[in-house]
């Protein structure tokens, strides 16, 4: 059982990150808000929930755990977290997608704390599997976490990496699928369906779990489980999420994949996120 104070801290943090993301995207006039919100809780849990080993003052610390955001278009959420943790100055966030900034629409390794250049989908798991293999061979104990979008799993490259990781028994590799059931044009089940998703992952030899990707209790419970609880299998977590989570008028609506809120919407979204904070704090 995860303690209530910790959950409350994480929920507050997630709301703050969502607010930051909202401001970044509104300021830039571009960005992918829906997917950033569906995975905000997962990223917050990884960085603030005591899951990842990391050192903001030394991003290339050899023994850090690796986190790869394969769904690079959700970079805004990760940027907000990295800035908050001190990887770079929070003033950079205001420059998101602006001339001369290090923070573009997708993450790359010029940004402190970013492990891989992503943005073209379907590359992260393969890179993560390579890193996990290296850590295993070096016997240095790092874990590798890869966050992919569910729509991304239509890329065949994801499944190439999937069989590789199972074959090489990469128990130090954890794949988290942001299962928000939407891609750009459609709901996944209407174009490139994945259900029964857990069966597919299990058939590929992964230790597979399914959780509510917005419940910190469930996210932490599964992430805190020691590795190799099922011997020598990489672990896949299907995190059921809602695209646009946190702002009711965005939730589950296709256009919020990359729509930018207008002034009214911005006000409504800010109000809603702020209210949640008050409600939770009381």
């Amino acid at each position, binding site marked *: 059982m995860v303690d209530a104070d910790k959950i409350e801290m994480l929920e507050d943090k997630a709301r703050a990150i969502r607010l930051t993301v909202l401001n970044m995207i509104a300021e830039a006039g571009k960005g992918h808000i829906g997917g950033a919100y569906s995975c905000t809780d997962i990223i917050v849990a990884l960085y603030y929930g005591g899951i990842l080993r990391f050192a903001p003052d030394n991003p290339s610390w050899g023994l850090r755990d690796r986190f790869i955001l394969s769904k690079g278009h959700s970079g805004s959420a990760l940027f907000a977290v990295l800035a908050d943790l001190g990887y770079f100055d929070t003033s950079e966030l205001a420059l998101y997608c602006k001339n001369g900034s290090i923070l573009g629409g997708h993450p790359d390794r010029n940004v402190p704390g970013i492990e891989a250049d992503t943005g073209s989908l*379907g590359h992260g798991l393969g890179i993560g599997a390579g890193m996990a293999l290296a850590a295993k061979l070096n016997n240095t104990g790092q874990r590798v976490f890869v966050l992919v979008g569910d729509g991304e799993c*239509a*890329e*065949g*490259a*994801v*499944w*190439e990496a999937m*069989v*590789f990781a*199972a*074959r090489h028994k990469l128990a130090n590799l954890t794949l988290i699928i942001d299962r928000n059931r939407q891609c750009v044009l459609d709901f996944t089940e209407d*174009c*490139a*369906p*994945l259900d*029964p998703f857990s*069966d*597919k992952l*299990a*058939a*590929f*030899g992964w230790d597979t779990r399914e959780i509510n990707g917005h419940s910190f209790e469930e996210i932490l419970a599964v992430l805190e489980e020691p590795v190799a609880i099922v011997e020598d299998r990489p672990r896949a977590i299907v995190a059921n999420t809602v695209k646009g989570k946190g702002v009711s008028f965005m939730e589950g609506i296709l256009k919020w994949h990359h729509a930018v809120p207008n002034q009214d919407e911005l006000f409504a979204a800010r109000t809603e996120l702020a209210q949640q904070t008050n409600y939770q704090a009381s």
Partner: protein
Amino acid sequence: MEENSSNNTLLTPTLQEKCNWVRTETLKIHKIAPGIRVASALSCVEILVALYYGKILRFNPHNPSDEDRDRFIISKAHGSVSFYPILADLGYFPFDQLGKVGKVGSILGDIPDNSIPGYETINGSLGHGLGVACGIALGLKAKQSSRSVFVLLGDGELFEGSVWESIMFASQHNLDNLVLIIDNNRICMLDYCTKIINIEPIEEKFAAFGWKHFTADGHDIEELHSVLSAAKEQACSSPKVVIANTVKGKGVPKLEGDSLCHIRALKPEEIDALLREMQS
């Protein structure tokens, strides 16, 4: 249409004889073309014979692009030299072509391409055949054709991610006119597949991806033929896969069970000895 012409449609005992004949011819080709992937060609002999002589495929050697044919895509093109004697036997091209495999000016190369009558598409790079076949199956449906698409894949090809993109596409669009056959000979180029990347259990994977799956002994011609027929006839709204468990190099003891048999070539005297043995 030759589907039912008597000389090309054989009963089980003669299907077996056909298989033996195809193996003999394949070895003869290997003697003049040492570069062919003979072991891979030998594992799919029964599959090819069942399709072409067992009333499963509809085809027309006189007009290879006959609209009313079933489409057969050989994605594991490198391992399909055993298809050459069948195409010659059925009249797609003259028999004497078989003596020219790999020779200057021949249409028949060590790896086939779609300039050869009877080959639908070009393969040779792995992992392309199923996607194209899905497009063809979709096209046939749009034309309201009742013809089917058969695809032959090697099990090693399942490592290619593009194959899984197509597997997902086929089940999403209910391509029930698509039959995939996996030549599950369990050996890639350098080793047993399980040692490189374990793709087993294949059945479970296909089930999880929404396919109807069948399994057969790929060298028991009777069983294989009945499973392929059943797969073709099976009324269901999903694509179908037949996993044919085979032995790479089947029929040549020296190759069977050699993890490197993919890249092995037999010496001419070894081939002569095998041919003598097979004919006796």
